[in-house]
C-alpha cells in the first residue's frame, strides 16, 4: 500500500475504491478479514499521498452508517492536516460532519444518564461501552474542529478538557469560547461546559430536538443505530432490565443479521426463559 502511495493522485481513485468496496463497517467481528486490513491501509496511504484530492476523497468516504470506518477516516484527515499544512479543508463540509458528531455525543450523554441504576454486569458493560462512545465522539469533535481552526491549540484544549483538572478544563472551554465562530460556539460550548448530564441534555436539546425520554427509548435508539457492538451490549443488558417493550425486541434480535447481536439475543432469551 505504501508503494501505491508513490503513484500520488493516480492511486487515489483505486484507494477510494478499496475504502468503499464492501459497504460493511470495518468493525466487523471478522477479525482476520483481509478486507479490514486493506481498508485501514488504504486510509493510511491516502494520508501519505496528502494532496487536495485525498482530502476530497476521504470526505466523500465518510459514512455515518459505518462509524468504525468513519472514525479511521477522521484520523486520516488529522494526519493530512499535520502532514501538509497548506491543505484546505472545506469548512462547510467539515461543519456538517461536526454537527453530526456533536449530536451523537449529546445522544450518548443522554443514554448514559438514562441507564438503570442496577449493579448487573450487563448494565455495567453497557455503561462502560456508552462512556467509550462518548469519549470517541468527543475526540471526533476536537479532531474536526482542528481541521478548520488552529490544530495544536485545539489539541491542547482537548488534553485540558479531558485532564480532569478543573482549571485546565476551564481554560479549554474559555479557549473554545474565544476561537469558535458563533454558530459552532453556541452548539458546542454549552454542551461541553455543562456540569451535569441533565444540563448537557438541556443544552443539546436547543439544537438537536427532543431528548430521549426513558430507558426504553434509549434502547430503541441504540438498536436502530449502526453500531453492532452497542447493539450487542444493549441486548445483553436486557436480561437485567426486562420490560414488556424489551421482551418484544428480544425475539426480533434473535433473528438479527449481525452474528454478535444474534448470539447475544439467543443467550438472553434462553437465560430469561
Amino acid at each position, binding site marked *: 500500500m505504501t508503494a501505491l502511495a508513490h503513484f500520488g493522485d493516480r492511486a487515489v481513485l483505486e484507494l477510494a475504491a478499496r475504502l468503499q468496496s464492501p459497504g460493511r463497517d470495518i468493525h466487523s*467481528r471478522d*477479525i482476520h478479514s483481509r478486507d479490514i486490513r486493506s481498508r485501514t491501509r488504504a486510509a493510511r496511504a491516502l494520508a501519505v499521498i496528502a494532496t487536495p484530492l485525498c482530502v476530497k476523497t476521504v470526505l466523500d468516504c465518510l459514512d455515518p452508517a459505518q462509524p468504525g470506518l468513519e472514525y479511521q477516516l477522521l484520523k486520516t484527515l488529522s494526519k493530512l492536516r499535520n502532514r501538509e499544512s497548506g491543505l484546505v479543508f472545506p469548512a462547510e463540509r467539515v461543519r456538517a460532519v461536526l454537527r453530526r458528531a456533536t449530536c451523537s455525543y449529546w445522544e450518548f450523554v443522554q443514554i448514559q444518564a438514562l441507564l438503570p441504576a442496577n449493579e448487573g454486569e*450487563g448494565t455495567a*458493560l453497557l455503561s462502560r461501552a456508552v462512556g*467509550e462512545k462518548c469519549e470517541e465522539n468527543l475526540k471526533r469533535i476536537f479532531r474536526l474542529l482542528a481541521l478548520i481552526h488552529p490544530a495544536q491549540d485545539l489539541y491542547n484544549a482537548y488534553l485540558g478538557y479531558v485532564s480532569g483538572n478543573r482549571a485546565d478544563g476551564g481554560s479549554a472551554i474559555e479557549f473554545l469560547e474565544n476561537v469558535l465562530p458563533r454558530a459552532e460556539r453556541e452548539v458546542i460550548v454549552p454542551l461541553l461546559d455543562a456540569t451535569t448530564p441533565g444540563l448537557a441534555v438541556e443544552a443539546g436539546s436547543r439544537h438537536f430536538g427532543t431528548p430521549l425520554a426513558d430507558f426504553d427509548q434509549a434502547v430503541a435508539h441504540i438498536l436502530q443505530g449502526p453500531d453492532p457492538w452497542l447493539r*450487542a451490549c444493549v441486548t445483553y443488558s436486557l436480561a437485567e432490565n426486562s420490560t414488556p417493550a424489551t421482551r418484544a425486541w428480544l425475539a426480533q434480535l434473535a433473528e438479527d443479521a449481525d452474528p454478535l447481536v444474534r*448470539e*447475544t439475543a439467543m*443467550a438472553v432469551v434462553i437465560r430469561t426463559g
Partner: protein
Amino acid sequence: MLTTIEKVIALQDVDVFSQVSTEELGYLAAIAVEETHAAGTTIYAERDPADSMYQVIDGRVRLHRGDLEINIAGVGEPFGTWALFDDEVRVSAATVLEQARVLRVGKEDFIDLLADNVEITRGVLKALVGRVRGLIGTIGAR
C-alpha cells in the same frame, strides 16, 4: 458456553487488558477459547513452553514451583499472562485445585490480533506503562 459478550465481561478484569476498550475486547474474546479442566490436572508444568495466558471463570488453580505455592488463582483472576509478551519458559506450574473453567488466549492468535488492531496494542501498552509507573511510584515512596 460463554457468549462473546460474557467473555468480554470476564476479560475486562484482566490487568493488562484494562485499558482496552470493550469493543476491542470483543476481538480478543473472539480468540479466547473456553476450556474445562478436572481437579488435579496440570494445565502447564514448570519449564513448559509458554504459549497461552489463562483466566479462571469457575474453580481454582494453584500456581506453584514444586511444593512452593506462589498463588491460588480464583474466579476472574488471570495467570500465565507473561506468555503473551515473551518467549521464556514457564517459571511456575499451574495445577487445578477444583474443577476449573478457564479462558485461554493463545500467544500466536494474540500477536496476530495486535498486528491487525493498533487500538488493542495501544491499550495493552498503556496498561503496561501504568504498571511501570506504579512500580516507580512505589520505589520512589521508599
